């Protein structure tokens, strides 16, 4: 089953490109010139995104390096111990929205230190798979079209992340 989905995933982009190019040619589009004209938009989009990405990355890296991140984690650790949630899973839950690469490294570390079949690993795996790098998504998507007034979007995303943690933990506990 997994193998089939994996193969389909590999196949989907090449097939899509082939179909697009053939359909375009059939509709008398000069596909090469068309592609170039589209690609020309790329740099302008990235120039829009870059300052947003930079601004949020500086804040996140600073937060992690200053010791504030560790303090928050330790402050909440007793609460999570009380709820019988491994501290590793909680670290995962607060790392994932901030940084994709950091959460991947953290997950590998959790698997290595607590063992591949521990509850901490299972919970972290579910969190890792079901949560997204919220701040990155916000910076990229809002930056791309220069949105400055985000109304209630950011609180909704952060609240959804918090709910997501508890959902992931409950589902993991129910399954393993």
């Amino acid at each position, binding site marked *: 089953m997994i193998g089939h989905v994996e193969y389909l995933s590999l196949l989907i982009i090449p097939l899509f490109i082939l179909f697009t190019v053939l359909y375009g040619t059939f509709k008398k589009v000069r596909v090469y010139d068309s*592609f170039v004209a589209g690609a020309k938009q790329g740099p302008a989009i990235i120039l829009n995104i870059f300052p947003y990405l930079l601004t949020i990355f500086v804040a996140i890296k600073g937060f992690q390096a200053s010791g504030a991140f560790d303090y928050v984690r330790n402050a909440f650790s007793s609460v999570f111990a009380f709820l019988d949630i491994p501290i590793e899973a909680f670290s995962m839950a607060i790392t994932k929205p901030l940084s994709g690469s950091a959460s991947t490294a953290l997950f590998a570390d959790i698997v290595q230190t607590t063992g591949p079949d521990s509850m901490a690993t299972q919970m972290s795996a579910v969190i890792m798979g079901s949560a997204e790098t919220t701040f990155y998504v916000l910076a990229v998507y809002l930056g791309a079209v220069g*949105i400055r007034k985000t109304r*209630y979007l950011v609180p*909704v995303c952060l609240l959804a992340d918090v709910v997501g943690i508890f959902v*992931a933990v409950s589902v993991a506990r129910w399954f393993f």
Partner: protein
Amino acid sequence: MNVVWLILISVSIVFAIFTGNLEAFTKSIFEGAKSAVEISLYLLGIVSVWMGITRILEDSGLIYRIAHLFRPLISRLFKNIPGDHPSITAITLNVLANLFGLGNAATPLGIKAMQELDALNEEKGTVTPEMMTFIVINTASLQLIPFSVIGILASYGHRNPAAVVLPVLIATAISAMTALLLLAVFRKVFR
């Protein structure tokens, strides 16, 4: 975002002073800048490729055909998208790319979707309800199979790494629905 950023930066600096992590903090600022440059360069490549591909979709009219095909599905969540608008195609392709774990395609197609949704935006610079729905769906991490998680589990000798698929899928589905529900509640409260 203003508040979030202000809190992150000022709390970090206060902590850096009290815990003696000033050097690490200053270094991390430049590391953050460096990774923003690296990720932007990476995005520059893949976004340009997908802008090229989607331009062919536009020039051949396929973008409207795909929009027509998926409109019944997409318009359930995005009520204010008119007719066979190209944003429907971009949203559909982004969701499909997410489902199959094609990160290299999902982000550029998501950017394309945001551009198309912004074309419908009457108040430029302010987020629209459609954009919010789209972003919330994207922060829910819709994915059929979490390949990266399975990969890491497998590499450390997990008995059955694929066992994580179902719980992840269920957790994702519940979180996504909760997020959309939260969005609907906020929408009601803030008119």
